[in-house]
């Protein structure tokens, strides 16, 4: 029975990733003909690329307004009612950051990746749960990899 043989072949572990990738590939090809309408009313929109840097903003490209500890920055989140201190993280600058941003125009990213800043607001506050998961994923991967490495690939004890 020919059909039976095809079914048997498809059930071999080694073939399945290949089979799966073919299926995903076929679906992806459909992406070329699907009309793609981009909704420009997005959450957390950002200014045109390079706009802030061209205007010599020391906090480019992550300047969203606000003054440290007094006024919150502008954040367009989904549920502002669920985040009591929204915008404060964005507006926060650590003392070092204030110092450095006064001396140079090209401070850019580093200021905002120190505690405070827009990405911190999203990563730790409004979408903080995502980061919990994300670091859990990393941790689990490390648990798995390090366990296997310690017990099998590095020590290679008899077992």
């Amino acid at each position, binding site marked *: 029975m020919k059909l039976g043989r095809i079914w048997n072949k*498809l*059930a*071999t*572990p*080694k073939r*399945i*990733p290949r*089979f*799966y*990738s073919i*299926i*995903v590939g076929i*679906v*992806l090809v*459909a*992406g070329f003909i*699907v*009309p*793609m*309408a*981009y*909704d*420009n*009313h*997005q*959450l957390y929109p950002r200014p045109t690329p390079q706009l802030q840097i061209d205007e010599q903003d020391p906090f480019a490209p992550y300047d969203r307004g606000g003054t440290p500890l007094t006024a919150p920055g502008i954040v367009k*989140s*989904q*549920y502002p009612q*669920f*985040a009591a201190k929204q915008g404060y993280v964005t507006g926060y600058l650590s003392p070092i950051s204030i110092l450095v941003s006064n001396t140079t125009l090209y401070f850019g990213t580093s200021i905002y990746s120190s505690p405070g800043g827009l990405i911190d607001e999203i990563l730790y*506050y*409004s*979408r*903080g*749960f*995502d980061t919990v*998961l*994300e670091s*859990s*994923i990393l941790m*689990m*991967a490390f*648990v*798995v990899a390090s*366990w*296997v490495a310690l*017990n099998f690939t590095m020590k290679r004890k008899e*077992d």
Partner: protein
Amino acid sequence: MDISILGGPILGIIPLGDIVLYFTPFNLFMFAAALAFTALIAISSTESQVEAEFGTLKNREVKVDKAEFKLRRFLAIVCGLATAGAMVTGDLFDFTLFVTLIGIVNIGIVAAVKEIDVLDAAFQYGLIAMIGTLPLFGGAALILASTGTISLLQIVQIPYTTSLMLFGSILFFLGVAGETGVAPFFATKAEMFRTPGSPFLLIIHLSSLLIIVRTIEILLIINKPF
């Protein structure tokens, strides 16, 4: 459209910033089931597998050794919690991360075994899980691009379905199928179940089936046929 025609009326929400968890009877049932099984796993010991040996009349007993047992139980509990979380989350991207976490933990549960066949299956499943991140995250991103939001409670209020949303959700479904490794790419996963340690194997199966069921709810929320 209202979310209550799918899983029943909303019984409550837990807001965590932009990520809002919601409970309908449907979500609550699966949440409770996942937690119940996780609790069961936490207190159970493993079985020892008895196999007949070739050529003699003796039996061979395959046991899970202590260190391996602890690691696998830990991973299984994490997997159970992740499944429970995925059942109630109301955020598309949060869901994808839960699914990925489940995928990696599933690989981990069988990664410590000694059978080559099982390891091979785990590796192939891992490959699928890695390929699956493209449709999974890509699909979520396309849905975000087409709707402007990834909160399911917001998406459900959009009255129409664009073709990009449909395309995104097909990709998303493929991604979930790859990440959890059940239908229709079943053989890799079934091969993994030959190893001893049944409570842990339960969680692999539990997570993938419940995730598939939940994905179907999510897809029905995103795509509105009428």
